């Protein structure tokens, strides 16, 4: 087990969210979508220009920019 930023995850890699370091609007947007501590996620793909990133959580797909993914630390295998 190691902890990395969501930005550095590879396509297809799975992990569990350890922390979300975002407050205010950004924090709310992220939480509204279910990205909270303990949530299981996997990287589904990246946009043609490598940014934003599409992630899979609880059976649906979300997109985030890389600099937003930086705020989320994930525990990966």
């Amino acid at each position, binding site marked *: 087990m190691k902890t990395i930023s969501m930005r550095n995850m590879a396509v297809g890699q799975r992990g569990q969210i350890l922390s979300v370091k975002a407050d205010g609007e950004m924090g709310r947007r992220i*939480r*509204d*979508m279910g990205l909270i501590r303990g949530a299981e996620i996997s990287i589904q793909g990246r*946009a*043609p*220009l490598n940014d934003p990133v599409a992630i899979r959580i609880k059976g649906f797909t979300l997109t*985030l920019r890389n600099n*937003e993914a930086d705020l989320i630390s994930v525990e990966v295998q």
Partner: protein
Amino acid sequence: MNTMSATIALAGNPNSGKTTLFNALTGARQHVGNYPGVTVEKKSGTYVNGDNKITVVDLPGTYSLTAYSPEEVAARDFLIREKPQVVVNIVDASNLERHLYLTVQFMEMGVPVCIALNMMDVAKTRGIDIRVDRLSKLLGVPIIPTVARSGKGKDELMQVVSSEERAMKNGPLRLSYGEDLDHALDTMESLIRPCTAVSNIYDSRWVALKCLENDQQIIDYMKSADSGLYASLKQIKDAVTDHLKKTLETYPEAMIADYRYGYISSIMKQGVMVHRYDENRLYLSDKIDKVLVNRLAGPVIMAAVLFGLYYFTFTLSEAPVAWLEKAIEWIGATADAHMADSLLKSLVISGIIDGVGGVLGFAPLIMFMFFGIAILEDSGYLARVAFMLDRVFRIFGLHGSSVMAFIVSGGIAGGCAVPGVMASRTLRSPKERLATLLTVPFMNCGAKLPVFALLVGAFFSKNEATMMMIITVISWVGALLAAKLLRMTLIRGESTPFVMELPPYRLPTFNGLLIHTFERTFQYVKKAGTTILGISILLWAMMTFPGLPDSAKEGFESRKAQIQTSASGGESIPSVVEKRDAEIKALEAEQSEATLRNSIAGRIGSSLEGITSFAGFDWRTNIALVGGFAAKEVIVSTLGTAYSMGDVDPEATESLRDSLASNPSWSPLSALSLIIFTIFYAPCFVTVVCIVKESGSWKWGAFSMAFNTTLAFLLAVLVYQTGHLMGF
């Protein structure tokens, strides 16, 4: 609740099938309006089943009930102020956990909730079994399984809504948010309760909760209602915020969200849902995405899809456009044959029929375009477009979500800048929003389409689809560069979050597409029928009065008599008669032109000719462009009026397109210059009013008119002069 005035609200996440259910419930009995004071669209309709009549209000789709976007505020205000009997919360059964997050917030508010567990069919094919009874019992709210696409379950839903109202009145849900917050909430609640100005409208504990969540709307309300009370609430809030930060490195809002999700997952763990397959397996939608948002194939397919939309629109609409043109010509010819020459006849033919007919003729084109857009929107592909283009948009200081505003405005030609400017409301950062709403009017709205279609049809008829694609590219590039310019100068600032759902691909319902298409087309036609008619008549008056002075009229009369005299005696010689008729015709055309030049509009147009000739525009084009300030489609109707009045030929069967193409003062280059000018110059006054409203200042409305017109003129001059030098 069997009274006629019963009202229910439909609420749910975007992409929950809310609009589909709304359409299934109300059919065509819909009314579209606005929420008071804001520009969020308010849709309401009537559900009828036997004697059972219920008013259904479709609330804006939201993920949450914070005061974070105007949609959320509108939805919340409606629930608090209008107190609908029941809130029907549409929950996606295939995406249960996340959708219940909104449900919990309704329950916290204490509004009577009933769940429509939608997309049961999708859940089933995904191997998800939901024990509806158990879930209903655990949440304490009635749940009715539905499939909105087929209308399955809608009558049962309405049955429950009207008969079991009492079962939904549970009072607010009291969740625990952890010891620290619960304690703070208790204290705050006891402070708020005695203040009746607040507690008569809102639930006291809910207000306390919203204060902890940093909800700006509630905070502002509390400040104005009782500033002393707010100060003591803030003290408690600050203390607990500080405490949480020190001990747990978290914020109250995050903590509250955690506990809400915790409550949901504790329910989920009690066997309400069974997965028959691996939860993370790839569905068909994900497999499609592997291709459609693929790094290499994605952009190529996206370009192809957009081009395909053009092709579809232009090819399929050709026949109906021709029919309408024929019909309008026939009406004009009939009026011409049955009316005596008079000012009234001129008004009817030149003012009314030509003006409105010219615009209505394009209605089929606009309808096909909207149909295509609706398919992209409803299928989920537009979200992928935003995903793929965000990186590009950010370069220009915009947001991936700006794509929506740009597309609605006509990024895929045929939108309208008015809803486009309004769509910019979904953007959270005021700076990106301002940049978006100031640049979306550069897009090719449905009203500019007739202008482009006319000019392209007349001068570039061999490459119609390619030319329209080029026009779109020009408007995009221009808008993005203008946005960048604004974000670097007048509206500097940081960028905002891009957290967005990629909904699974869905086959759009035919019913939904039709409602969507007709709604928008109807709005266009309504605008064409009223505003345009008024403006067309006004312009006719401007182009008719004051008429030629008597001395000039006499001059024409005597010249006409001269021609008659010189040809007298030759009535039996065909060549003489032909020459005479041609001379008279030319003279009459000259007279009409002189009349128009002398009119109010002609004088304005002529006085500007000195400047506009650098861009290749004569006074007629100038008149048309002045009219375009009112609405862009007026450019076409004004050109129509201007040319039919300047050309007295009663056999006016040639359409405007042909008369422009054969007119020596027009060339492909001047047409291109006019196209460029039309793309960029001042938005119509309706859009300007919207910009003023959305930006909150007349300054930006005035700015957009001045900035856009200056930019448009410089670009048109550049194109025209460069083209001239190159020998076109």
